[in-house]
């Protein structure tokens, strides 16, 4: 049984942006944001994390939801996801299933049903785990984030969110407000995860890929891996190798070898560095084949 520690924070649940801004301007330091809390609640209790002010974002109901903006002349269509949308909502959303399959595919493999009902997309990203299941799909979907703080909002590619394990580039008073996925109609995307159990596990490594073909050759490709470094990473050498080539299993296997070369996994209690390096080529090849199978 875990001993109860980490007491002594103030809790608030602002219901509007004005209220949130006022709280953040008044609080001097030690602010922590609470979304689904599936990781943070445990960390606060064990004392792994502590804060002076726990700011629950669930009062901002507009942070939940998934909506499509149709393509217009000169502008691609996109899907906008509020940062507090639950992982379960991603899993069952028909729009995402049809147009960004890698994301619901990852969502349905994250944690347990109870955790997916509670955990949020923004929370999974801001938690900055190198194996966050939603990270690799967002990298291959070219997602960008709208960040908000009392001093204004800004947009960044999802790739620029993470520094290292557990650490983002978000300012102390900054939150993720929205995740935007630009739509690409001719694209096939996929996600795969390696772990000892088929459910409930944190990945040893996970992988996502997106592919587009033109006249039988690869005209666009994205590969992203979790667990291959201290943050979720795009495998840009492997991508460059595949560009313009035919989409064959042999080329995908070669791309997998390149992906292992540009990875720098660490050893953890879940798996050794060597095991990760040995499995990265296999998972990379398989996820590319799966993305290819979704093209036709």
């Amino acid at each position, binding site marked *: *049984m875990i001993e109860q520690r*980490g007491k*002594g924070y103030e809790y608030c*649940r602002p219901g509007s942006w004005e209220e949130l801004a006022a709280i953040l301007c008044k609080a001097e330091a030690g602010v922590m944001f609470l979304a689904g*809390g599936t990781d943070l*609640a445990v960390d606060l209790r064990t004392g792994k994390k502590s804060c002076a002010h726990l700011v629950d974002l669930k009062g901002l109901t507009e942070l939940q939801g998934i909506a499509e903006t149709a393509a217009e002349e000169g502008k691609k269509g996109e899907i906008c996801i509020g940062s507090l949308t639950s992982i379960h909502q991603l899993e069952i959303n028909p729009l995402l299933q049809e147009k960004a399959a890698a994301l619901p595919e990852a969502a349905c493999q994250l944690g347990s049903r*109870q955790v997916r009902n509670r955990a949020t997309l923004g929370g999974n990203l801001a938690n900055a785990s190198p194996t966050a299941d939603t990270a690799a799909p967002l990298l291959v979907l070219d997602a960008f984030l709208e960040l908000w703080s009392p001093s204004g909002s800004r947009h960044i590619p999802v790739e620029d969110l993470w520094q290292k394990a557990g650490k983002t580039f978000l300012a102390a008073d900054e939150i993720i407000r929205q995740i935007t996925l630009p739509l690409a109609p001719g694209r096939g995307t996929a996600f795969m995860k390696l772990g000892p159990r088929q459910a409930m596990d944190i990945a040893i490594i996970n992988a996502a890929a997106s592919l587009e073909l033109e006249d039988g050759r690869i005209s666009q490709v994205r590969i992203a891996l979790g667990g291959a470094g201290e943050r979720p990473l795009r495998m840009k050498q492997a991508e460059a190798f595949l560009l313009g080539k035919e989409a064959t299993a042999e080329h995908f296997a070669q791309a997998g070898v390149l992906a292992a070369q540009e990875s720098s996994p660490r050893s953890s209690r879940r798996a050794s560095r060597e095991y990760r390096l040995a499995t990265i080529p296999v998972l990379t090849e398989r996820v590319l084949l799966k993305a290819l199978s979704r093209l036709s």
Partner: protein
Amino acid sequence: MEHKEANSRKIKLLVNNVAREDTVPVDLRLADYLRDWLNLKSVKEGCGVGDCGACTVLLDGKAVVSCIIMAVEADGSSIVTLEGLAAEGKMSDLQEAFLAKGAVQCGFCTPGMIMTAAGLLAENPQPTAEEIKRAVAGNLCRCTGYQKIIEAVLYTAEIRNQKD
């Protein structure tokens, strides 16, 4: 390190359809609020870190693990525990199915299993065995009696389907 007393906050919520108003410490877990404050003993603490599912309850109709949610976070919501499934002392069809199919061994995981199944059936009235397995992946049965549990949920769906 100074050990400051936790702050308190007033919460209003529905628990098993009864309106409640309590002032709770901000770090009181929902599981402890339900079990210790409201005496709802079906809510069990197994692991305390959200992995075993023994403390599963429905929050606004969705199965959640109440050991990793603070009571203050449930302010304004509706909670159903196993006690809430048995209206006026009569067990629900799902509970009856667990008995009929012998899906109860030591019983520790049973309330959580039933609440997860209740959440699943509300969303998907005709789940396949595979979907049930996936749904209860976060509920650990230390007696390993999973097969009977899956049968009980399938049986409930079947009975409900015959009635429609």
